[in-house]
C-alpha cells in the first residue's frame, strides 16, 4: 500500500472534517424538530462505488444504513447517467434504506469529468405523507400506507432545483414549508461537501484521493479483522423477541447464529420469524447496521466506519423474513424497534463468552408517542421518544433515563412542549422500582403525563418491551415493561397497545411509563 501512516491519518482527518461540516449545516439550517433538538440526521462521504469513507454526526443506525445506500442507488442509476451539479433524492427502504421518513440526498462529485466520490445527507423528516400525521401508521398493512415513496430522482440538475419535482414532493407531505427547509438544508450540506472535496482534489489530485480512499477501506478492514480475531472461534446463538406481530398476537422471535472463524464473522438471521403484517418489518441494511454497532460496542470502539469494515463480515438474511421483508411490507417501526432487537439477539449470542462486557437489557425501543393535533393552520405534530432504565453491568448499576445502543435521540423539554404544542406536561418523574433486581440493579425508567389542550388529537404509539421485558444478565432480574395508559377526561382508563392509532380529546391524560433496565448477577449473590 503506497499511502503511508501519516498521509492516511491526514486524509482521514480531512474527509471526516468535511462530513462533520455537512452535519453542522443540516443541524443549523434544518427545520424539523427532529433535526434540531434531537439531531436525527447523518452525513457521509463514499468513494465512487458507494463505499463509505467518512461520516459526520454519529447516529449508529443511520451509519449502518449509509454503508449501503449509495451502492444500492448505483444499481438503479448507473454512474453514466449522473452529471456534475446533480443532487438525487431517494427514500425507498429497499434501496439501501430503512424507512420512508429517512430521506437521503445524494450528490455525485466530479473532477475533470471523473466521478470520484459521493456526498450523502440523510435526515429524518417529521412527515413524509401517508395515513397519519408523522407518517407512523400503526395499523399499516402495506408500504404505500406509510407515505410518499421516492425512487432515485434527480431533484437538482446543474445546481438548480427541478421546480416541478420539488412541488410534487411537497404536495405529498404534511408541513410543506418545514419539509422544504429540510430539503434546502440537506442540499446545502452536499454542496458544501462538493466544494471541500474539490479543494482537496485540487491539492492532491484525483488519483491520489482514490488511492487514499482505498487505504481507508483497507485500514478499517484490518481493524475489523483484528476485532474478530479477539473473539474465540465458535458458533454462538442468540435470540430475543418482539412483543407481537405489530398488530397483536404472540411474541415474534429474532434469532441469530454467529459463526466466528479466525478473522471472519458470519451473522445469520435466517431463523428469525417470517415477515409480519404490522409495521415492524425491516431491511437487511438495518441488520448490517445492528451487526456493525455490536461489533464496535463489544470489540472495537475505535473501528473507523468505512466500506472496508464490512469485508470480514457476512450478514445473512432470509428473503421474506421479518429482517428482509418484501418491498411491499410496512417497515416504519422496524427502523428503531426491530433494529434494536437484532442488536439484543447478537448481544445475547455473545453472553457465554462476554458476560462481563454486556449490559442487562435496556430500553431497546424508541418508546415513541406521536400527537397530531389539528390546529387552525394545519397539523401540529409532536413526536417524542422516551428513554428508560439502562441495564446493569457486572461492575455498576444501570443508569436511569437513558437511550441505549443504536438510538441516542434526546427528549423534548416540558417547557418546549408546552410552548409549541397544545399539550401540558403534568409531571415527569422516575418510575421508581422499575429497574430489575440483581447484584447490580437495572436503571429506573421514567413516567411522564401529557394532558391534551387541543380538541382533536390523533395519538400514535410505537413501542416495544411492553410484553417481553428487558432481560437480566447472569441471573439478574428483568426490568419492568413499558406501559402507556390513556385516562379519558370522563374517567375511563384505557391501556394502550405498543402499536396503536387512537383519537383522543381535550382533557385526556396520556401517561407513559418506560421500561426499567435488566439487573446483572443474582441479587442473593455476594454483596457489592
Amino acid at each position, binding site marked *: 500500500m503506497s499511502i*503511508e*501512516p*501519516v498521509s*492516511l*491519518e491526514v486524509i*482521514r*482527518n*480531512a474527509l*471526516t*472534517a468535511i462530513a*462533520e*461540516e455537512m452535519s*453542522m*449545516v443540516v*443541524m*443549523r*439550517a*434544518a*427545520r*424539523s*424538530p427532529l433535526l434540531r*433538538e434531537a439531531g436525527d440526521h447523518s452525513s457521509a462521504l463514499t468513494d465512487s462505488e458507494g463505499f463509505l469513507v467518512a461520516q459526520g454526526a454519529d447516529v*449508529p443506525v443511520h451509519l449502518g444504513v449509509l454503508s449501503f445506500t449509495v451502492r444500492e442507488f448505483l444499481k438503479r442509476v448507473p454512474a453514466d447517467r449522473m452529471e456534475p451539479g446533480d443532487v438525487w433524492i431517494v427514500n425507498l427502504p429497499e434501496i439501501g434504506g430503512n424507512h420512508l421518513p429517512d430521506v437521503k440526498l445524494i450528490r455525485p462529485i466530479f473532477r475533470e469529468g471523473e466521478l470520484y466520490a459521493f456526498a450523502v445527507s440523510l435526515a429524518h423528516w417529521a412527515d413524509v405523507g401517508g395515513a397519519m400525521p408523522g407518517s407512523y401508521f400503526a395499523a399499516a398493512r402495506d408500504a404505500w400506507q406509510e407515505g410518499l415513496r421516492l425512487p432515485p430522482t434527480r431533484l437538482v440538475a446543474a445546481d438548480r432545483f427541478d421546480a416541478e419535482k420539488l412541488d410534487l414532493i411537497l404536495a405529498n407531505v404534511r408541513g410543506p*414549508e*418545514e419539509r*422544504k*427547509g429540510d430539503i*434546502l*438544508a440537506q442540499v*446545502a450540506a452536499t454542496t458544501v461537501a462538493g466544494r471541500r472535496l474539490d479543494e482537496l482534489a485540487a491539492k492532491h489530485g484525483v488519483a491520489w484521493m482514490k488511492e487514499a480512499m482505498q487505504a481507508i477501506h483497507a*485500514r478499517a478492514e*484490518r481493524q475489523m479483522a483484528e476485532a474478530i480475531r479477539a473473539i474465540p472461534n465458535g458458533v454462538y446463538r442468540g435470540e430475543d423477541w418482539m412483543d407481537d406481530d405489530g398488530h397483536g398476537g404472540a411474541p415474534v422471535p429474532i434469532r441469530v447464529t454467529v459463526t466466528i472463524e479466525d478473522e471472519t464473522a458470519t451473522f445469520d438471521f435466517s431463523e428469525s420469524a417470517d415477515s409480519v403484517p404490522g409495521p415492524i418489518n425491516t431491511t437487511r441494511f438495518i441488520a448490517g447496521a445492528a451487526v456493525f*454497532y455490536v461489533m*464496535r*460496542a463489544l470489540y472495537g*470502539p*475505535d473501528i473507523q466506519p468505512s466500506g472496508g469494515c464490512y469485508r470480514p463480515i457476512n450478514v445473512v438474511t432470509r428473503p421474506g423474513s421479518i429482517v428482509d421483508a418484501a418491498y411491499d411490507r410496512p417497515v416504519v417501526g422496524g427502523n428503531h424497534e426491530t433494529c434494536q432487537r437484532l442488536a439484543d439477539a447478537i448481544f445475547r449470542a455473545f453472553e457465554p463468552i462476554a458476560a462481563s462486557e*454486556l*449490559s442487562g437489557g435496556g430500553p431497546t425501543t424508541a418508546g415513541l408517542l406521536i400527537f397530531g393535533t389539528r390546529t387552525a393552520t394545519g397539523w401540529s405534530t409532536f413526536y417524542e*421518544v422516551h*428513554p428508560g432504565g*439502562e441495564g446493569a453491568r457486572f461492575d455498576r448499576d444501570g*443508569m*436511569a*433515563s*437513558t*437511550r441505549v445502543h443504536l438510538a*441516542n435521540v*434526546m*427528549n423534548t*423539554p416540558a*417547557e*418546549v412542549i*408546552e*410552548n409549541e404544542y397544545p399539550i401540558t406536561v*403534568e*409531571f*415527569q*418523574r422516575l418510575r421508581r422500582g422499575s429497574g430489575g433486581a440483581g447484584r447490580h440493579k437495572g436503571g429506573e425508567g*421514567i413516567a411522564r403525563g401529557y394532558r391534551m389542550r387541543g380538541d382533536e388529537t390523533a395519538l400514535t404509539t410505537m413501542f416495544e418491551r411492553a410484553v417481553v421485558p428487558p432481560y437480566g444478565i447472569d441471573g439478574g432480574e428483568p426490568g419492568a415493561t413499558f406501559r402507556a395508559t390513556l385516562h379519558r377526561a370522563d374517567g375511563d382508563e384505557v391501556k394502550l397497545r405498543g402499536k396503536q392509532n387512537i383519537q383522543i380529546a381535550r382533557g385526556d391524560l396520556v401517561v407513559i411509563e418506560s421500561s426499567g433496565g435488566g439487573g446483572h448477577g443474582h441479587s442473593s449473590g455476594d454483596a457489592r
Partner: protein
Amino acid sequence: MEVGSEMRVGGWRLGIDIGGTFTDVIAISSDGTAPRSAKVPSRPQEPVRAIVDAISAVGLSWDEVAEIVHGTTIVTNDIVEHRFRPCALIATAGFSDTIEIARGARRHLYRMDLLPRPHPLVPAELRFEVEERLTAQGDVATALTDAEIARVVGEVAASGVDTVAVCLLHSFRNPVHEMRLGAALRAELPHVSLSHEVSPEFREFERMNTTVLNAMMMSKIKHHLSLIDQRKPGHSRLHLMHSASGMASPALIAERPLMLAMSGPAAGVAASSQAAQRLGIDHAITFDMGGTTTDVCLIVNGRAEIAANRELGEQRIRMPMVAVDSIGAGGGSIARLISGALVVGPESAGAEPGPACYGKGGDLPTVSDADLILGYLNPSRTLGGSVVLDRAAAEGAVKPLAESMGVSVRRAAAGIAKVVHSNMARALRRATVEHGRDIRDFGIVAFGGAGPMHVAEVARLCGISRVTIPAFSSGFSALGCVEATMSYSRQTSIGMKSTAWDACVLGKAVAAETDALSAAMIDAGHEKQSLNVSITAGVRYSGQSYETPILHPALDDRERLNRQFEQAHEALYGYSTGEPWELASLRVEVLAPRKDAHEAPVIENDEAEATMELGSRQVTFESGTTFDVLVRHRRRLPIGVAIEGPLVVEDEWSTVVVPPGDRVTADNNGNLMMEVAL
C-alpha cells in the same frame, strides 16, 4: 463609593491569572513606567498566597496597587474534578426528578462500560417540590401559597444543607413564584440560587442544572473573596475575569460564581481580541496550545464569539461564555500506530509523568518529544526553570514507533507533527463552520507554550496566511485581565413571532435586562450614561433550533430586522425563505468603558543588538527537510523588517518556529507577524 478611583495617578493595575501550574502577572502603571511581568507557582490550596506572591514578583507591595483583575480556575477545577457541595433543589410539583432524567441521551455511543452521563448533582433525598404552576405564557395556573412556602422552606432547612437551588417551570417568563420563595429561603439559608436570575431561558433541565451548579460554588467563592478582602488594603480594588471575557465585581461573583467557569480561557481570549483590534485584524482564531489541550475561539469583527452554553467536565453549563473549543491535543498527546495509521491523542501523558523528554518516567512518544527531536524546542533550555529536557529519552520513546513505520526517528517525529497539525486544522475548521464562517476570512493569534511552535503549518492547512504571535504570548491570560473592561451579559428567552410583533414588549424586555445588568456597575461607581449597551438577537424560522445571531438588531423596526435576519441567514446557509420567523432570544451586554484607556504595553526592543543571535540548531520541518537554522532572541529582532524562514525565535517562555518560505516581522509593541506561504 469608588467613583474616581480609576483616575488615580501612580497606581498600578495588575492582571493576575491563577492557572493550574503557574500564576501569571502583568503590571502596568499609569505614570509611564515600563510594564512588568512575572510567573510564580500557583498554590491550589492557598490561592490568595499566589496573589501575594505575584504582587511581590513584580516588585510591588499591595499598597501600590490600585486595582487587581484576577482570573481563576477555582470554579473550573471544582467542576472538572467533581468537587460539589451538597445542595438542595426545589422544583415545581412533579418535576424534581428532572435533574436525573436530564435529556435522556448518553455521551459515548460505543462505550457501554462508561456511565452514560454524570450522576445527578442532587440526590433524591435533597429534592423538594412545591405546589405551583405557571403556563408557558407565564400566567399563574396554580398559585404558590404562603403556607406552601413555609412548608418547603422548613423542610429544606431541616435537611441540614446550607445551599439551595430553585428552578420552577416557566420562571423565565414570570419570576413571581421564584422571587417569593427566594426571599423566604434567603432569610433562612446563606447560599440561595434562583433559576430566573442565573439562566433566564427555557429548557428546564439545562436551567436547573446550571442553577444547581451555581449554588454549589457559592460558599467557596464567598470564602475566597473574603480572604482577599482581609489581605487587601481598602483603596485597592478587585475585579474578577468572568467567562464571557469581561470583568465583574466581587459582589456579583459572590451570587453568580458560575460566571467564573471559563475565567482562565476567557482572559486569553480577551487579550487576543484586544491584540487583534490593535493590529487591525477583524476576524481571528485564537490558538492556545498547552500540555493536554488546545483551546480555539473565534473573534469576529474584533469581538470574541460568545456561546450560550458550553460543556465543562461533562456538565452542560448554560451561561454566556467565550465560545472556546477545547481540542484533546497538546504537547503531551501520545502518538500511536493503530492499524496502519499514525494517530496522535486524545490520550495524553499529562503533567505526570509528562512527555518522555521531561525525564520524569514517561516512555510513550508525545508531541513534545517530537518537538524536541525536530529542533523546535531548545534542548538546553529549561521550561519555567523546573524541567531539563532529555533528548535521549525523547528519541528512545519515538524509536519503537519509527521502527514499526520503517522510517528514521526524525522522520517519525515529523509525522507526529504533521498528524497533530491536521487534527488541529480539522478542529479550527469545525469551530468556524459551527459559527457559519469561512475560515479563509480569518487570521490566527497564537499563544500558550506550544502554540507559536506549531501555528505556521496549521495555518497553511487552513488556507490562512496571516498569523500573529502577540507580545506577552506566554503570560497572555494575565494581559487579558489587566486590559479587561467591566461587562455583564445575560441571555433571555423571548419567543416573539414576526406575525405577532410587539415592539413595546421588546422595548420593555430590553430595558428590564439592561437595568438588571447595569445595577451592579452603578453600584461599583459607574454612571449610568457612561455604560455601553449592546444587544444580540437570536432569530430563527419557526422550527429551526439554531438561532441566527443578529448584532444590533432593529428591534423597533420589524421590516428592517427582517432584512437583517434574511441577509444573515443567507450568508450563513446560502438561502433565505421569506417566511415568518421568531425572535427567540435576546442577549444584552452592558459594558463600562475604561476611563483610563491606554495604549498597549510597550516592550522595548534593543535595536542596537538587533543582530544578536542565540546560535543555530538543526531543525526538521514538516516536509522532512532538515536545515541548520538560526535562533534569534525575540526581543532582539529588527523592527519592521521581514525575515524569511527557516528561523526560530525564542524568549524565556516560548518558541516561534518559522518554516522555510514563511516570513516573520516584529513590530515595536513586541508582536510578531508571520506571513505563511500558501
